[in-house]
């Protein structure tokens, strides 16, 4: 289960983040969040370097990173499609949207396409319940989402998202 070590994992990008917080356990969650924003995910060398810098056991950093859903230890796609499965969205058929993207992109929710183009995630509520069902594609909210709206938002990201339909 060890994450593949990226040759391109440039640890120097971590230094400004580590400088921003005191080198102790309480900064761990925030350092991980900033690191995830920089590297798009948390590669192993980054976690090891953070453990060393904050003087916290490696097991603590790793096991904390696997606890919170915001952190991903696997490389994430260039594009992120997040389908909200909150109660309001659920009763308005959000599950169908997840299945739709799963079919289109050929991956299960929580996974990333082999070509690292798209990560399909679900979240348990993003707080835009009045617009349910909500899908967020690369930070852009799609309110009252339908399969057709979703395909438009995923155009160019998921091959065959739209073309296949016209065929």
């Amino acid at each position, binding site marked *: 289960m060890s994450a593949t070590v990226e040759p391109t994992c440039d640890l120097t990008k971590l230094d400004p983040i580590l400088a921003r917080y005191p080198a102790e356990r309480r900064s761990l969650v925030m350092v991980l969040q900033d690191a995830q924003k920089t590297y798009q995910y948390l590669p192993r060398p980054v976690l090891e370097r953070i453990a060393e810098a904050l003087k916290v056991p490696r097991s603590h950093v790793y*096991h904390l990173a696997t606890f919170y859903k915001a952190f991903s230890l696997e490389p994430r796609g260039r594009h992120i499609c997040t389908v909200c499965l909150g109660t309001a969205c659920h009763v308005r058929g959000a599950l169908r949207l997840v299945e739709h993207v799963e079919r289109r992109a050929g991956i299960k929710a929580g996974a990333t396409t082999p070509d690292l183009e798209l990560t399909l995630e679900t979240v348990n509520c993003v707080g835009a319940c009045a617009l349910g069902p909500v899908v967020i594609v690369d930070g852009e909210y799609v309110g009252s989402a339908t399969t057709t709206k979703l395909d438009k938002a995923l155009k160019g990201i998921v091959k065959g998202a739209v073309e296949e339909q016209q065929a």
Partner: protein
Amino acid sequence: MIVNINGRDLLASPEETLLQVARRNGIPIPTLCEHAGLEPWGGCRLCVVEMTRGGTGPVRVVPSCLQPVEDGLRVETHTPRILRIRAVLLDLLLARTPDARRIQELALEHGVKRTSFVPRRDPDKCILCNICVRACAAVGADALGTAGRGAAGRISLPFGDDASACVGCGACALSCPTGAIEMTDRGSERRIWGRTFQRLPCPSCGAPTLTREHAAHLAGRSGLPAESFGACERCRREQASRLFLDLVGK
């Protein structure tokens, strides 16, 4: 401080927990994740008891391993409700770890022969009681933790395979209540967590003693040189008797 357990008034000191008072007075309360030498965890919930403050308030179900004593507490350790909770908890654990002998025994004691739930697919023996993680932290190695969250959680090394912090002392394997952690000692080698440790040979008789990493670890914590931990007990006793001999001078 007086605590009434099962109708008996028992003397208790403020920093004690209900479980300690009960144990001191021979009242049997089952536990799994409690370990007297480690921080209480409160995860298995087997040690729950019924408690009311001053005999009048609402009846609350609390874990006796964590509930501190309070003056005037009335506690019942074997009410039908509590026995039912313990039986269902063991029934649930049987579904999680069907072939863990300790769970089978405890379940049988509570009238549960087979689980009435859906057994876990390809189960191991780990009940996630966290004793190994706490023991490893007490030893000071901090090599273990729980990866993942909720029902998908499992005890693991960092990154699943990084045993660099492990000193091979075996505390986790030997204090695991269900024997879920494999440790094999063969000759001077010890295999645990997928890593092979070399146990230092006793300088005088060559018998395998502790692992090199554990010796270095103990040295680090005690300030003594690592070599001082290397000899086996038998030889150290022999050296002690020689020392006495020199003292005595005959």
